[in-house]
């Protein structure tokens, strides 16, 4: 398969090729999902170094033990699930040594304007205080534009449970970030 035809191949084909050790197919998948997975990990962990480590581990698993395309036709769902589980493991390991307040203050990047920076930090801090599954559900919904059934697949819960997680996450964030409109 030529380089251009690999780029145009479907995800199922790319996954099949990657399973057989096709490096070009793996690179196309990595190119496609590296940034979204990194950003999801960053929002979950609020620490760039840890987010990069989890991202690398996620793609290592994609290379070494990719899913069966017949069972997982959407690579993104599988990647987010692996990344989510690794993030939860990292948060649990970290919990013994770091307080929640330290996590909330762990800003990751400079912003253009101070106000935007403060808002971003406030959002990051409020997200960091959410329980892991609520945080993951909200980030997948808002930043990745996933539907509730897709989020349910990533988190391994029912669609109803996903709706409940999203509702509670939004209520908590409203109370923390925009208390004047928290009732809406």
């Amino acid at each position, binding site marked *: 398969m030529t380089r251009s035809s690999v780029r145009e191949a479907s995800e199922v084909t790319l996954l099949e090729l990657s399973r057989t050790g096709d*490096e070009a197919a*793996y690179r196309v998948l*990595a190119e496609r999902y*590296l940034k979204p997975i990194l950003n999801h990990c960053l929002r979950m962990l609020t620490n760039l170094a840890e987010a990069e480590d989890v*991202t690398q581990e996620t793609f290592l698993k994609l290379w070494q033990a990719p899913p069966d395309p017949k069972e997982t036709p959407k690579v993104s769902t599988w990647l987010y699930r692996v990344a989510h589980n690794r993030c939860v493991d990292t948060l649990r390991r970290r919990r013994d040594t770091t307080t929640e307040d330290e996590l909330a203050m762990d800003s990751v*990047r400079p912003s253009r304007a101070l106000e935007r920076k403060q*808002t971003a930090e406030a*959002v*990051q801090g409020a997200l960091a205080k959410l329980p892991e599954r609520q945080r993951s559900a909200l980030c997948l919904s808002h*930043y990745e534009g996933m539907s509730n059934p897709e989020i349910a697949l990533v988190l391994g819960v029912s669609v109803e449970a996903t709706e409940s997680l999203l509702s509670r996450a939004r209520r908590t964030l409203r109370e923390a970030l925009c208390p004047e409109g928290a009732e809406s």
Partner: protein
Amino acid sequence: MNDRDPLERMLDELPGVDPSPTLRRRVFEIPARHPKAVPPKWLAFLLGPRAAVLAIVLLVLGAASGWASSDVGDSGAVSSEEESSEWEELSELALATDLSEDF
């Protein structure tokens, strides 16, 4: 734009990051650092479904040839009467007497 949920607008303030060159290198070098042990094609054939089909065909052929040759075995069978007369002849030769008369 102003009709948007204030929470959604605040969430949008959290910008995404681009992967650093170091991370890109780490991720894109994974295949080189962790080469896959892909089995050779002949082993894949031995373990694959084509090998199972071949085995079944050989079994069927073997069974068919076994049935075809089973008639040959029947003609070579020795009856018990022929066997006892052979023993009597042998005993006469060995002992120079016919033992069957004593019994």
